[in-house]
Structures are given as C-alpha cells and as structure tokens.
C-alpha cells in the first residue's frame, strides 16, 4: 500500500499539539491489550495519535511481546478474501457437494435394497441357473484383483477403526470360525468366487461393533455354494499375542483367509487379508451358510440361524469373552475360567475345568486358539496358558 496521505494532512498530523500529561504504563498496557473500558480507550487513542513518544513505547512493548495474532482472526481473514472474490466457485462447490451426497445416498439405497435378494441367494441349494459358475481359471484374475483390493481396503479400515476405539474386552463381540480347516483348505483347495469382499466387510463390521440380530452378512455378488459345502470365512488375530493390548499383531495366515470348510472353494486370494496388522481385540468371524457365532456386548454367546440370533448357554452366569470354531467343535471361554465345549456345532455343551498347579483356573479366558480339533491353547488374562493335544480331554497349564 502506498503511503499516499495528502501532504497537507500529513503535515497537520505532525504538528498536532503535544499533550501535557502522558498516560501511565498501566494505561498504555491496557490500551495495547484492549483492556480499557469506557471513554478511557478514546482518551488513550487520542493521546497516542498526538504523542510520538508514547506511540514508540507502545510499539516497542508490543514488538517485544511474543503473543501472535489470534488464530481465529487469521483463519477468518484467510477464508474471507477468497469467499468474496470467488462466489461462483463457492456455489459450484456447494452444488457439487450436494450432488455427491445424493449420489452416495442413491448407491447406499440400491445396495440395501439388493441385500434381501442376496441373502436369499446365499441360502439356495445348488448353483442358480441364471449365474452358472464360470471356470475358475478364467475368472480368477479379475475377481481376485478386485476382491483383493476391496477386501484389503475395507478390512483394514474396519479393523483399524476397531483397534483405535479401544473396545473393552467385555464389550467385544466376536464371531467364531473353524480356523484349522481353513488353514488347511486354503493350501489345498482351488479358489472360488462365491464369497465377495462385501460379505467380509459386513462380517468384520458386525464382529467388532456388535452385529444387529438378524443382520446376517451375505455375499454381495455371490455364486451360491451348495449347502453341502458351506463356505466359511475366518478372520482372527493371533491368539498367542493376546494380552499385549497396545501392540499391533500380525495375524496368522490361516486365520485371515477365506476358505471353505470341507474343501469348498476359496473366495479371496491368499495374502489379501493375512497381511493386515490386527490388534488382539480383532474379532473372529465365521460364515457357515448363515451360521454364525458371536459374543454380544453383554458377554452372551449367541448363535445365528435363519430366524436370527439365538442366545446359547443362557443359564450360565459367566461373561463370555471369546469363541472359537474348529470344524464342528465350538469352544467358548469367559470370566471365572469358564470354558465350554461343543463337539456338535452347539447342540450339546460340556463345561471344561482348567486346573493349574495352584488349583482351578479362575482368571478370565481371553483367547482360544485351536490349530485343529485336537491341538489348542487357551490363554487367560493373567497370562496362564493351557494347552491340549487331545481335543480338550486333558489340559496342561503353565
């Protein structure tokens, strides 16, 4: 800006009469800090407009202050100018944002409206005539790449949200899946395309934050699997590392894979989800032709059926913390060392007592990991680990 005051005015300013009395340091400070009230501000400003010495003092003191400009004013000024200068752009951005919101809502609505159809499709027996299964060799690259990307991004985001939210152990809802068959079938069975990333996303979200009863995750773009070969999905953290709550854990490869329980086709390619960093609170999920296990926020074990979620072991007072599915074997553990086992997919249950050298284990079970139906390890929140090599008939605790 040019210093372009009319010269006569400038000189008249310079020749203003000097006031006799000067304001105190107290008043000058208050002026500089905008703390003067009433007429005092005007009087101080009037004095300062005529007294060069006082102005010098005020500016010297001000320059010595570290106090920066108020941030909100800087921000306001930064945004004020462009807003005035580019009203069209602002309006355009507003309209674009509105269009984006509407488009998102439309996509969501279409997705939601398609869900019942997909659920029905997943329950069908045998492949639908309208969508024949394509040869795996041909369709694999496309589906694999798409599912790989989507799965990874979706699962990562969901799991990271879960790990950041520091969900309390007792509020974590978990889904169980048969981990051992998954691991083995992953290596042996051919890949398939019947479980889409969308189903994995739904499962992951439900398993971490609590699944709404009845909201059974289903494949979004599935080629239904025959009922005799139910697809199973498992997402779990490495149980051995549970307890190091703040340390992100690398999931075991078998646990983060999509697999079929009985030689069924795999949906997602290997290495898609098993590279994720998971926290100990990552849920375990299982999709067994709409056959899921979970632990609710209240510590209850629930089992999904076509009708919805049904509470299991309702007569038990223990607060369950973890559930694990190995084939037809279901293991569930919780507070007070409570450990229950079902060998027939939850039809019958038996309580298992873990005995340590000091007596019966009463600590809360926080992890159950079975490599197969015979070999498994149970970990408590006090660090006690009990292992079995005979399907839970005997336990060795340390």
């Amino acid at each position, binding site marked *: 800006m040019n210093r372009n*005051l009319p010269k006569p005015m400038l000189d008249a*300013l310079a020749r203003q009469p000097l006031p006799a009395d000067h*304001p105190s*340091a107290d008043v000058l400070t208050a002026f500089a*800090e905008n703390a003067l009230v009433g007429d005092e501000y005007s009087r101080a400003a009037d004095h300062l407009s005529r007294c060069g010495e006082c102005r010098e003092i005020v500016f010297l003191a001000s320059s010595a202050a570290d106090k920066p400009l108020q941030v909100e004013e800087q921000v306001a000024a930064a945004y004020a100018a462009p807003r005035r200068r580019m009203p069209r752009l602002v309006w355009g951005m507003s309209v674009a944002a509105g269009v984006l919101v509407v488009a998102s809502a439309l996509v969501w609505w279409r997705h939601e409206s398609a869900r019942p159809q997909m659920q029905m499709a997943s329950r069908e027996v045998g492949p639908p005539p309208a969508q024949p299964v394509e040869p795996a060799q041909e369709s694999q690259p496309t589906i694999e790449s798409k599912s790989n990307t989507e799965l990874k991004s979706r699962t990562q985001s969901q799991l990271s949200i879960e790990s950041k939210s520091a969900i309390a152990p007792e509020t974590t809802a978990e889904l169980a899946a048969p981990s051992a068959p998954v691991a083995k079938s992953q290596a042996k069975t051919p890949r398939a395309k019947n479980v889409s990333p969308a189903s994995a996303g739904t499962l992951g979200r439900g398993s971490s934050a609590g699944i709404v009863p009845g909201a059974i995750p289903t494949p979004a773009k599935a080629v239904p699997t025959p009922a005799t070969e139910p697809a199973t999905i498992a997402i779990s953290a490495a149980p051995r590392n549970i307890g190091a709550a703040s340390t992100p854990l690398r999931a075991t490869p078998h646990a983060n894979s999509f697999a079929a329980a009985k030689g069924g086709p795999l949906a997602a390619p290997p290495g898609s989800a098993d590279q994720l960093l998971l926290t100990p609170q990552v849920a375990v999920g299982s999709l067994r032709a709409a056959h899921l296990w979970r632990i609710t926020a209240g510590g209850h074990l629930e089992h999904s059926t076509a009708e919805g979620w049904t509470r299991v072991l309702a007569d038990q007072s223990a607060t369950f913390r973890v559930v694990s599915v190995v084939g037809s074997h279901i293991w569930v553990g919780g507070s007070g060392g409570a450990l229950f086992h079902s060998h027939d997919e939850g039809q019958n249950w038996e309580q298992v007592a873990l005995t340590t050298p000091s007596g019966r284990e009463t600590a809360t079970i926080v992890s159950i990991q079975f490599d197969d139906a015979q070999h498994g390890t149970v970990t408590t929140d006090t660090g006690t680990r009990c292992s079995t090599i005979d399907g839970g008939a005997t336990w060795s605790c340390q």
Partner: protein
Amino acid sequence: MASAPLAGSLETQPSVAVREFAAQHYEASGAQQFDMDQAVLIKVLAEIVKQRNPASDNVSEQSFLASLRLEELVLARACARGNERAWEVFLTRFRATLYETAYKIAKIESEARSLADSLYAELYGIDPKGQQRTSKLLYYHGRGSFEGWLRTVIAQEYVNRYRGTKLETSLEGAMEDGAQFAASDPEVMVADPRLQAAVSAELSELDVEARFLMAAYYLDRRTMAEIAKLQGVHESTISRKLERVASGVHKRIRQRLVQAGMSSRQAEEVMDSVDVRDLEVKVRETLRQGIENSTFYKEKGEPQG
C-alpha cells in the same frame, strides 16, 4: 503520569462496591498466601478506584473492579510489601520475561542487561536511606497484564535512555552519520487560506482511531504488521482501514476545497504541492475539543512516556 501510590498518607474510604468485591474475590486473588489480609486488599482496591478519574468515565465501579487483573495486582503489591514468597513467585514467572523483553527492545545484550538490572532494582524498591521501600510495582494497578506492564515499563526506560543519549549526539557525529541540513527556502509559499481551513476541519472531524492509525503509519512509518500486532487484528484489517481513511481524507478535503470555490484540478494541485507547514492551521484549538478534563494522572516519580 501514572497514579502514585498513596502510601497510607491519605486514608481512602472504601466504597461498598469495593468491600463487596474484595470479599468475593479475596480467596481467588491469592492474597492469603502472601500474608495480605482482606483489609489490605480493600485498601489497595480503594486507592485504585479513587485514582481512576471516575468523573470523566461512564463505567460503573463494579465493571471497573471486574476488569482489574486482581491476581497479578495482588502479587505486585505483595512484592512491593516485601513478601518473600511473592518475590519467589515473581522471579519464577517474570524474571525471564524481564530480561528477554529487555533484549528484544535493546537488541544489544549488554544494554539489555543493564536495562533489566536497573528496572529490577526499581521494582525491588531499594531505598537509599533504608527507610521505606518505594517499589515501582506500586504503580501497577492491574489495568492490563502484569507481563505487559513490565514490557511497557522497560520500553519507557529504553526510550528515556535513548532520548538522553540522542541529545548528547554531537553535530560532527550527526554529519558523519550522513545528516544533511537543508538551507532555508527564501521563497515562502503563501498557502491558500481555504486549504488551511479544509485541513483543519478535516483533522478535527477525524475520529481518534483513524488519527492514531494515520500517525502510526504515515508519521512513525510503522508497518501494518506492527500496527496489527498492537491492535490484535490481522494485517489485512489494518490495510483496509488505512486505505479507507486515506481515501476518505483525500476526498473530503477536495470536496471542501471545491465547496470553497476551487475547481477540482486546482484542489488536486493544491493538495499535492503545498507544504502544510506553511499553513497556519489552528490545530490546537480544533483538537482540544472534548478533552478538557485531564485524561491521565500526572505522576512525579515515573518517567514521561
């Protein structure tokens, strides 16, 4: 200048508002930890209220009291009373500020240390006779922040010193520094009385804030950033204000000149060419309006600011 402490010579009768205010804020003020009882606090507040020149102020006593920095005021007064605990707090909180501010103002370390040391002695209130402490802290009335007050006091001290040394500058030294002494112009331009009247009228009608801005920017050559920092606004705000003030002044003076009988071109030429030092504008009369009451207290002990 600043209101001098009454030092007990004049017993001030505290008002009801002061008593109530002291009773309400005694605990929060921290006076108790410095061995200041409520009566002392009331006395301090009563003195400050009395010296605020309420006749020309339209602010209620309660509002005035509420605007005070009570905690810092108590600390300053406790230091002035020689309370050891208060000095510990003062040194902890403000010693670094004192020396840092002195360095920022003086720019030279030795000068800054000298400046801060002398001020520190004044704050401590060493009396040569050893009779009574006369701490400069008694001049702090809690109108602004204590830290800001310390900065202002250091700036005052620096300006006083600078003014003193400036007067001692020799003519030879000034010439060596490049000072030039212009010869007086034998042809004194006789200014148009219409211009004198227009400038005088315009100056008298300017509000104080505009005058302060113009003086700081056009006379002192302060940057807009400096003015903005002082006023706590963004630089662009100052830019807009200055532009508005300058263009307004220019326009109004030209209008006055046109109304007085000049053509637009004549008015422009007069405004651009005439040195107003040739005018006999009765600035004193025009600016004395409304400030008959003494705005500030005259003080004997404090340097003129």
